[in-house]
């Protein structure tokens, strides 16, 4: 109890070896990533193993998640964006399950670490760059040159466009990380109030009901945030990929 930051601590579980002077360790963060990835794979394979035309409850969960992501891609990046379905679906499911698992007490929330979200956002950023140049060649630079701009302010606009483009992976990663971090700290602090007030005696327990109610409400809010953040991450991925597919203005 007490320290609300303690839940984000990285612990080494066992060592693989050394790279230079840095030890390569299997951490609790890595453990949860493995659990999440294996859990998603196992769930999707088990629920679609016995494919029936009229889906059961579990099968319809996996079908709904596929359709949800597919609709998101089609509506933001068009049908051409469907070739990125594996990427977007993987990102969405990974973040969603990571956020949801993090809500269970005594678990570790991997998306509350910026290194994880930054790695995911950079994957998208680099995919956009590589695919954009591979598909459009130098025409990809049209992304930075809006049409219908007078020539004398064009250099300034190009500068701003480039800055705006570079700021994408930052807002993409910080949004997810900050929301999860802040949410979990708030939960912990309010839960801490309950026990602290309870230590004051009979009147304290009476006062502790207020933070207890708040913790319940906040948990519901965090459930919403966990889903919404995964959705926002997926939809922004689609919007960025759309720029790589259609860089013109």
């Amino acid at each position, binding site marked *: 109890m007490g320290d609300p930051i303690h839940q984000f601590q990285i612990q080494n579980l066992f060592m693989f070896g050394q790279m230079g002077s840095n030890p390569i360790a299997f951490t609790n963060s890595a453990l949860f990533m493995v659990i999440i990835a294996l859990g998603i794979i196992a769930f999707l394979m088990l629920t679609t193993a016995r494919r029936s035309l009229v889906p059961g409850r579990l099968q319809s969960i996996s079908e709904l998640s596929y359709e949800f992501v597919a609709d998101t891609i*089609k509506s*933001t990046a068009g049908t051409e964006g469907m070739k990125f379905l594996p990427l977007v679906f993987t990102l969405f499911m990974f973040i969603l399950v990571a956020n949801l698992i993090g809500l269970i007490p005594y678990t570790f929330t991997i998306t509350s670490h910026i290194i994880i979200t930054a790695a995911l956002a950079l994957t998208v950023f680099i995919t956009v760059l590589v695919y954009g140049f591979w598909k459009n060649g130098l025409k990809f630079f049209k992304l930075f040159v809006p049409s219908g701009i007078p020539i004398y302010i064009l250099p300034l606009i190009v500068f701003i466009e480039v800055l705006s483009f570079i700021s994408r992976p930052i807002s993409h990663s*910080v949004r997810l990380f900050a929301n999860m971090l802040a949410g979990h700290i708030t939960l912990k602090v309010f839960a801490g109030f309950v026990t602290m007030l309870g230590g004051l005696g009979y009147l304290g327990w009476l006062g502790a009901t207020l933070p207890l109610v708040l913790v319940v409400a906040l948990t519901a809010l965090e459930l919403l945030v966990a889903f919404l953040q995964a959705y926002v991450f997926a939809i922004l991925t689609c919007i960025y990929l759309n*720029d790589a597919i259609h860089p013109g*203005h």
Partner: protein
Amino acid sequence: MANGTHEKDELKRKSDEAALSARLKSLGERLRKTGAAPHPEKSVVQSSDPSAIARGFRLSTELVAGVLVGAFIGWLLDRWLGITPWGLIVFLLLGFAAGVLNVIRAAGAGQNPGTSSRK
């Protein structure tokens, strides 16, 4: 006995379903007359809209990210070229402009499927 009631239930369910679909059809018919039925094309666009909360989450970080990137690039230029404080001043302002651009795009982007998010 169990079999008989089961069959009866089945029959009842089927007639219920037929009645329900008939009612739904007539409701759709009446809605179309009043013009309240969702336009098929319009509903596609609406479903592509992120929900309002999701959009709010986007707006909150877009501006900050632009300013941060501008400040960071300006600071790096200052260090490399020794032009303190001009790099920071210029790029902080440019970053602010980029942040505002991000926010405008976040508020209006992603509505036309198959086209660029820039307008």
